[in-house]
C-alpha cells in the first residue's frame, strides 16, 4: 500500500500518537517522548511556497516528514467535459490554460492532434515556426521553474534576472500572436499568421543577449555552496521508481532515463535538428535543476538552427475546410465567406477515428487522446497531463526529509496547478 495516498494511514498514525500520549492537558508539552509527538501540518492549499493551489497534509515528527496526503482539485475546471461540447477551434483556449507557463506547447500539441485526425499536412515553414515557438515556451517554462527554485532556497537575484528574460520571450509572443500569456497562436494546418520582421528582429536580438544572462545565472547557482547544501540529495527518486510512477520530461531525465518524445517520436520536423538530451544520475533536486539548465541551452541550439534554416513558403496548409480564410477574402469571395462561417460556427465535421498524439511539454509527455464519432466535436477527449501523473510521487519523495526540503522538491518538480487539475 502506498504511503503517500492513505488518509486511513494518516489517521492511524494520529490515533497511535494520541494513544501513546500521556494523559495531560492537550497543550501541555510532552516532556519525555518527542519521537511520538506528531504534528499535522497543512502545507497549502494556498501557501506562497507551494506555487499553486494544492494541499499537502503532512505528518511531522519534529522537523521530519513522516507521511503525507496530497489533495488536489482546487482549480479543476472540467476541461474534458467542456471539450465534448466544443468544436475543435474552441478547444484551443482550454489548452492554453493548462500549463500556463508554456502555453504554446499545449496549443501546438492540440493542433497537431487534430491535424493527425483530419489528415492535414503542415508545410515545412509552419513546422519550423512551431518548433521555434515551442522551444521558446520550453525555455520560459524552465526559466520560471529554476528561478523560483532559487527563491525557495533564499536567492532572489536569480529570479529577477530570469524573470526579465521571460518578459522578453513574452514580447516575442506578443509580436507573433498579439497575446502574452494565453497565446492561442496555432491553427489547424499551420500558424495563425507569419512571423513579422519585428518578431524575427526581436528574436535575433534576444538570442544574442540571452546566453550571457543565462551564463551569469549558472555561475551564480551551479557550484554555489549554499545552494548545493540545500538541494543535493534532496527529494531523490530512482530511475525505476520514476518510470513506475510515470515520470516524463526533465524529472525523469534527472533520474537518468533519456526518454524524450522529441527524439523517440519526432513531430514537427524535430528530426531535422541536432540537439542532445541531458540526463542526471541521482534524480534529486540538484539534478532536476541542472537538467533544466542544460535543456535551456539545447533549446537555444534548436531555435538557432530553425531560425537559420527557416524555409520560405506558406505558413499554413491549403486546407480551406479547416483553416480560416483571410479576412479580406471573406468580404469579397463567396467561397471564403461560406468556409469562414462554417469554421467559426463549428459546423465542420471530423472523420470517425481515434488518435493519440503526444508532444514533449515543459514537464514531460503531454498527450492528447481524442475519440471522434464523426461529429463536429470530440466524442471523448483525454489529456495526459504530466503534472497529474508524477505529482502522486511527491509525498513518497519527501518522506523522511525536512519541511524545507519538501519546499524545494516541490518547486523543482515544477508542478503547475492548471495542468495538475485541468
Amino acid at each position, binding site marked *: *500500500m*502506498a504511503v503517500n*495516498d*492513505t*488518509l*486511513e494511514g494518516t489517521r492511524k498514525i494520529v490515533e497511535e500518537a494520541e494513544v501513546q500520549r500521556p494523559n495531560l492537558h492537550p497543550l501541555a508539552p510532552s516532556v519525555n517522548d518527542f519521537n511520538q509527538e506528531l504534528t499535522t501540518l497543512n502545507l497549502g492549499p494556498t501557501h506562497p511556497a507551494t506555487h499553486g493551489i494544492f494541499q499537502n497534509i503532512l505528518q511531522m515528527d519534529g522537523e521530519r516528514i513522516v507521511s503525507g496526503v496530497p489533495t*488536489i*482539485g482546487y482549480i*479543476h475546471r*472540467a476541461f*474534458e*467535459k*467542456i471539450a*465534448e*461540447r*466544443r468544436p475543435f477551434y*474552441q478547444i484551443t483556449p482550454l489548452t492554453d490554460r493548462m500549463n500556463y507557463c508554456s502555453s504554446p506547447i499545449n496549443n501546438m500539441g492540440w493542433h497537431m492532434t487534430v491535424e*493527425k*485526425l483530419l*489528415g492535414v499536412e503542415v508545410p515545412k515553414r509552419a513546422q519550423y515556426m512551431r518548433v521555434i515557438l515551442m522551444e521558446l515556451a520550453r525555455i520560459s517554462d524552465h526559466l520560471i521553474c529554476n528561478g523560483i527554485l532559487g527563491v525557495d532556497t533564499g536567492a532572489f537575484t536569480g529570479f529577477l534576472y530570469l524573470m526579465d528574460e521571460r518578459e522578453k520571450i513574452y514580447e516575442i509572443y506578443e509580436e507573433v500572436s498579439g497575446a502574452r500569456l494565453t497565446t492561442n497562436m496555432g491553427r489547424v494546418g499551420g500558424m495563425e499568421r507569419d512571423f513579422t520582421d519585428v518578431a524575427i528582429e526581436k528574436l535575433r536580438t534576444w538570442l544574442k543577449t540571452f546566453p550571457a544572462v543565462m551564463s551569469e545565472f549558472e555561475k551564480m547557482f551551479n557550484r554555489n555552496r549554499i545552494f548545493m547544501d540545500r538541494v543535493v540529495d534532496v527529494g531523490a527518486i530512482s530511475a525505476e*521508481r520514476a*518510470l*513506475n*510512477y*510515470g515520470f516524463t520530461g526533465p524529472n525523469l531525465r534527472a533520474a537518468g*532515463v533519456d*526518454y524524450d518524445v522529441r527524439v*523517440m*517520436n519526432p513531430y514537427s520536423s524535430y528530426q531535422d535538428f541536432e540537439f542532445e538530451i541531458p540526463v542526471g544520475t541521482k534524480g534529486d533536486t540538484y539534478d532536476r535543476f541542472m537538467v533544466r539548465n542544460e535543456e535551456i541551452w539545447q533549446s537555444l541550439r534548436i531555435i538557432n538552427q530553425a531560425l537559420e534554416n527557416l524555409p520560405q513558403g506558406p505558413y499554413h496548409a491549403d486546407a480551406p475546410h479547416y483553416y480560416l480564410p483571410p479576412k479580406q477574402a471573406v468580404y469579397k469571395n463567396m467561397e471564403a465567406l461560406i468556409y469562414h462561417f462554417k469554421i467559426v*460556427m*463549428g459546423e465542420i465535421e471530423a472523420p470517425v*477515428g*481515434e*488518435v*493519440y498524439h*503526444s508532444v514533449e511539454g515543459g514537464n514531460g*509527455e503531454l*498527450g492528447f*487522446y481524442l*475519440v471522434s464519432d464523426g461529429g463536429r466535436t470530440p466524442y*471523448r477527449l*483525454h489529456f*495526459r497531463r504530466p503534472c*497529474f*501523473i*508524477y*505529482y*502522486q*510521487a511527491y509525498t513518497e519523495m519527501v518522506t523522511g526529509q525536512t519541511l524545507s526540503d519538501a519546499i524545494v522538491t516541490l518547486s523543482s518538480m515544477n508542478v503547475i496547478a492548471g495542468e495538475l*487539475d485541468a
Partner: protein
Amino acid sequence: MADQNESPAAQEAAAAQDPATQKNAQLLALLHRLFGADTFTDVEEPYGLLTATTTRERIHDIIAGLQQDQELQVNFLTTMCGMHFPDKEGQELGMVYHLHSLVHNVRLRLKIFFPINDPVVPTMTDLYSTANWMEREAYDFFGIQFPGHPNLIRILNVEDMDYHPMRKEYALEDGTREDKTDLFFGR
C-alpha cells in the same frame, strides 16, 4: 498514406515496407503468442497505433505479462482513461490503456468494455504506481470501481458529489433550465 489508385497488392507491398506497420505486425504476433489469439478482438491500427479490445477478466494478466516480458519490456503506462457509450447495450463503459515500451519504442492501446450496472475493473496499482490517481480519476468521472485500489476516493471533484459527471447523461447546461439546450454550450 497509400495512393487510392494503386492496386490492393501494391498497397499491401507498400504497407509491408512501412516500419510502423511491420512493428505493429510483430507486436500483434507476440501478443497472440503470449496470450492466445482469441483474447483480442477488434484489432486495428488507427493512425499507426495498434489497438485491441480484450476483456476485463484478462486485462490484468495481459498488462502484467507485458510488463514482465523480457522481449518487449512494456515498462511504461502512458495513460488510462474511462469512456462512456450509452448506446452500446451491455458495454456502456470502457477503459482505455495506453502502454509504451521505452526500450523498443512501441506503443500499444488496449481497451475493455463492460456493463454500466457492473462497473468493476481490476486495479493496476500493484503493477504501476502511476495507475493510482488515474484510477481515482476514472472512478471520480465515470464511477468505475477498482477493487484492491488502496484509496479509491474522488480526486478532482468534491467528495459529497453523488454522480459521475463525465457520463454522457450529465449535460453541461443546468438541467433545470428549459430555455437553453446543451447543444449551444460554448458557442
